[in-house]
């Protein structure tokens, strides 16, 4: 049985439809990432699955139970890292882990959790004095202190610098090694690509694509070819070598093709025959980011924040 089953889920806030006819499964042991812009319905979906929100329609099952009725039994088996939620600032890090851990049946040792979350040095520090990244690691620590079968991570690394994000990824990956199922939301493409076995792309509360990152990329069969036109040659000389929809920006020419082998052979054949070296020639497969941007392209609300930090 799947760890999470979502069928035709619907959630509205007044006249706003946050989640609309959403269905997906997360298999036991799998890392599943919900990907989408802010406001696409990721957090609403996750909070319904965590039992924090009611739904307006559809069926959801988390570890075999309805989260609305799961109660203590279910909450013992899941770990929740909310997108934003406070901790008692007056406590020391070690105390908080002890206090929260005490209510689980399969709790981990405080030392083990500190170690896992990379907080060993902060054990004796007041939570109120920690940096944002350190606080986020306590969120993670409190999410795993009960040795959950299923871990919800709602934007776990938003606001992290690249090094801190890598460390969090290592932690999440090591948890997955223990067989923990993870439902992750993120708007970082590289995070999804790095961690997730499967990705569901949400747009305006609907699932518009789903699959392993490599599948999503493969489904997008267009390969980009680009190069710079040498001085003294004009676009016209290339003739049939270039597809009609090529873009020309200054000397730079770029086009997509479903048959990259033939396209490149035609182009290089043309160049070699004339003794021309094509500078800056590149043939690239789309990244998950290209796929994602293509999927949500007709959304007018696209802004730079979506692809923040997804660069190299």
């Amino acid at each position, binding site marked *: 049985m799947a760890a999470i089953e979502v069928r035709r889920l619907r959630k509205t806030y007044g006249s706003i439809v946050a989640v609309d006819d959403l269905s997906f499964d997360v298999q036991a042991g799998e890392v599943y990432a919900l990907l989408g812009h802010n406001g696409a319905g990721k957090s609403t979906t996750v909070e319904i699955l965590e039992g924090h929100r009611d739904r307006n329609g559809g069926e959801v099952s988390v570890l075999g139970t309805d989260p609305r009725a799961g109660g203590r039994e279910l909450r013992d088996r899941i770990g929740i890292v909310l997108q*934003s939620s406070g901790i008692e600032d007056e406590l020391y890090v070690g105390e908080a882990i002890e*206090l929260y851990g005490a209510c689980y049946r399969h709790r981990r040792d405080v030392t083990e959790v500190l170690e896992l979350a990379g907080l060993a040095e902060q054990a004796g520090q007041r939570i109120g004095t920690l940096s*944002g990244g350190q606080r986020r690691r306590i969120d993670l620590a409190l999410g795993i202190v009960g040795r959950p079968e299923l871990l919800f991570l709602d934007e776990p690394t938003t606001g992290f610098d690249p090094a801190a994000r890598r460390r969090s990824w290592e932690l999440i990956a090591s948890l997955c090694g223990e067989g923990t199922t993870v439902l992750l939301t993120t708007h970082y493409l590289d995070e999804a690509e790095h961690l997730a076995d499967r990705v569901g792309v949400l747009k305006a509360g609907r699932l518009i694509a789903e699959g392993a990152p490599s599948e999503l990329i493969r489904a997008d069969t267009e390969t980009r070819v680009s190069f710079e036109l040498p001085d003294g040659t004009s676009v016209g000389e290339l003739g049939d070598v270039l597809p009609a929809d090529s873009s020309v920006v200054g000397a730079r020419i770029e086009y997509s093709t479903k048959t990259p082998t033939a396209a490149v052979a035609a182009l290089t054949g043309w160049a070699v025959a004339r003794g021309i070296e094509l500078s800056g020639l590149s043939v690239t497969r789309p990244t998950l980011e290209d796929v994602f941007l293509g999927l949500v392209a007709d959304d007018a609300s696209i802004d730079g924040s979506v692809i923040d930090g997804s660069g190299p």
Partner: protein
Amino acid sequence: MNEWPSSAGLVVRQIRYQVLMFRRVPIALFFTLVLPLIMLVLFNALFGDGEVTVDGKTWPTRQFYTGGLAAFTAVSATYTNLANMVPIRREDGVLKRWRGTPLPTWVYLAGMIGSAVVIAVAGVLIMLGLGVVAYDLEVEAAKVPAAAVTFVVGVAAFAALGMAVAGLIPTASSASAVANATILPLAFISNIFIPIEDPPAWLATIGDIFPLKPFASSFQDAFNPLVEAPAFDWGALARVAAWGIAGLVVALTTFRWEPTTGRPTRRRRASSTTADVQ
């Protein structure tokens, strides 16, 4: 399958940590425990040798102030403290975090309320201790049961009322304002700061309607030499209890885990975590 941790153990742990957190907030410590002690010292310095006449009964000032301020401390520790803390925890998202854990709701609330009661007990004992040591407060053994029962009824009622304010008032800042704006004026007409010899009828009525005066006066009775042991004032206790039950009903029907449905919780989040890299 491991056993659930024992509920009693969880409650004790919650109380222990809540008291610990209270002790780490200097401002709460000051207003709840220290300020009433300062008032005791001041009132005794100003009027300590005299006598007060309240409702036609004349008795030593020091007996009057110690009992009244002890009752006020108990109210600060429960009513004011809970009306302050619970909305802060709710607004910070701490309540939401706890809701996602297997800790039973009642255990969390028992921890909050239990810690308030522990603080109230400590405050009252410190107050009475200072009274005995510094101001020759006389405590008659025969009246101790009445004082204890009055205390129990009072802290239970004011804790429930504090939770009711926490449930009714949406934001943390306004909840703490409402708590202070209700309790301070009442304290002035409830024979706590000022012994009122002959109050205007309407003011006396207002005092009698609200629970502070019945609580403070029946607690003071235990220290009033003119009142015969065992000094139970069942009528006053019934009024306090009635308020407590009303408060409990409101608290149970208005309790919320989150500020308002759908609104995110407030949370500090550093925009950059460069300092985090080690």
